């Protein structure tokens, strides 16, 4: 299913006055995948999306959406690509059913099924202003997929929602994923990208600094997993041999014993070996495990003094980084 490129962006550049919003950006979105566009505010994510939708004209570079140039055929592109725009709304007094009637085209999907799938079946007569934050975003999802687009673009869909509402919206996006819909998801919530995206693209200062699956980015940039525990008092005399044994475990990079608190750092696979080793001795009651995650990876990418070049793919052999 995943493979055919729906969107191909090459060398996209867009400036606003003296500020370069997007700088020679390359991006592919293939059919059937959920791609996350990540980056700090002002990284150029929304501008990129607007160029893909034909809402902004690039200064240079090429954008191809299903064989169409959005700068020339914007109306046609927007028939093929459903979207939810950042900071967009509906009129306060417009009801859910009226919004759907207004936005539906001749190729629209069955409305009842959509409202049911996105949990809005009972809200047809509810005005937009009376919807909760989560319901509004789910309505935007319904409108984005209403006319059976080839792809949907979701820009900061869950911004400002409480955790429960965010989970509701995630569930709705998973409905899309299960249906095989291609999604370009702009977000700065890393847990959202980690939960939903097949692939993420990290932008900084208008450029792509790395791309890959969330797992690949974690391996490349998130640093080491850390296991921390206190050494039992009666074993303190045996700390030396204990530390030596941990150092020899697969994937372990360093072991430090600081006044009775042992800190083991290594790759994700090393955590299992360390915990298994601990089970053979006295199990510590203050065990702490900090796993590297996408947030740490993206933070590293966004805060490093020099934006890193894309590294070579990292291979994992027998649980260890090579």
């Amino acid at each position, binding site marked *: 299913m995943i493979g055919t490129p729906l969107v191909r962006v090459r060398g996209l550049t867009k400036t606003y006055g003296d500020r370069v919003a997007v700088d020679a950006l390359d991006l592919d979105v293939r059919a059937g995948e959920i791609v996350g566009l990540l980056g700090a505010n002002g990284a150029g994510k929304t501008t990129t999306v607007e160029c893909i939708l034909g809402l902004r004209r690039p200064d240079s570079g090429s954008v191809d959406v299903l064989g169409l140039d959005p700068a020339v055929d914007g109306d046609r592109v927007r*028939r093929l690509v459903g979207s939810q725009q950042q900071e967009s709304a509906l009129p306060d007094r417009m009801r859910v059913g009226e919004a759907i009637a207004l936005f539906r085209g001749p190729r629209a999907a069955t409305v009842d099924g959509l409202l049911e799938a996105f949990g809005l079946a009972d809200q047809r007569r509810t005005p937009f202003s009376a919807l909760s934050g989560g319901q509004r975003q789910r309505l935007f999802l319904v409108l984005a997929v209403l006319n059976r687009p080839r792809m949907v673009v979701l820009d900061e869909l869950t911004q400002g929602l409480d955790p429960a509402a965010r989970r509701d919206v995630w569930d709705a996006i998973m409905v*899309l994923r299960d249906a095989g819909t291609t999604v370009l998801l702009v977000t700065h919530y890393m847990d959202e990208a980690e939960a939903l995206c097949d692939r993420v693209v990290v932008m900084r200062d208008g450029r792509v600094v790395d791309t890959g699956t969330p797992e690949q980015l974690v391996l490349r940039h998130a640093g080491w997993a850390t296991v921390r525990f206190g050494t039992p008092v009666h074993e303190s005399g045996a700390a030396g041999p204990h530390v030596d044994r941990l150092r020899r475990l697969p994937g372990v990079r360093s072991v430090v014993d600081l006044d009775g608190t042992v800190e083991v750092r290594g790759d994700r696979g090393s955590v299992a070996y360390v915990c298994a080793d601990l089970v053979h001795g006295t199990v510590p009651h203050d065990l702490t495990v900090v796993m590297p995650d996408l947030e740490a990876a993206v933070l590293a990418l966004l805060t490093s003094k020099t934006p890193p070049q894309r590294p070579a793919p990292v291979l994992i052999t027998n649980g260890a980084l090579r």
Partner: protein
Amino acid sequence: MSTSTLPMTDPTAAEVAPRPLLGSVLALVGSELRLVLREPLVLAFVFAFPIVTVLVIAGSFSSDDDGFGGVDPSHWYVASYLAVVVAAIGLVMVPVHLAAYRERGVLRRFAAAGFPRWSFLLAQLAVGLVLTLVASAVLLAVAAPVYGLPAVHDPVRVAAALLLGALAFTTIGLLIGSLVPNARAAQGLGLLAFFPSFLLGGGGPPPAVMSDGMRRVSDLLPLTHVTDAIREPWLGTASGLGHLLVVAVLLGVALLVCARSVRL
């Protein structure tokens, strides 16, 4: 869900057919009119304000007052107040509405959904015209039993003046609403334009009692020309043709500027 059945090949002609302009405009007109009916403040300003003020001012002069060129003052004001409806819609309702839509991202949503670029503005022109006609009819229906309706000497010119005036002022309203940063600014600017126009352009004292300076200002106001273009052929005091031409030119210029500089 139906999206799973879509072929991942080149898009079909049906998929990429642009949304038809006329269908889009009609859909937006229907939607916007429905929404206006749910806006009590808008309805109050567009419908109630002209009615209340005309009932007050038309009854404030004796019927033999010589400031109205021999016309019954109440008839003079009833014929003038259709222009107040035009101004209330064009200078206050439309700019605030458009600026609020732009500020809140409603226009972005329409654009992203593939509505043709000018469909929203054309729909607003149609909505402005429909509201002008309905509000004018309501105003006359309320004024008729109180003051009576003056006979219409030249209905074609009166209708033409009302039509062109409504389109011109709605276009000006769209221009204001598209250029100001937000709805609050649109409201401020709109009211700033509305009240002098209202007081000096037909809804306030008659020109005969104005000072020379005030009369000169009044002569320069676009709304004065709309008022005169409606009232003169209605009451038969003059042809109103010169004022109608001014209103037509005003509409042409407003449309041209709107088409060139409007940002959605």
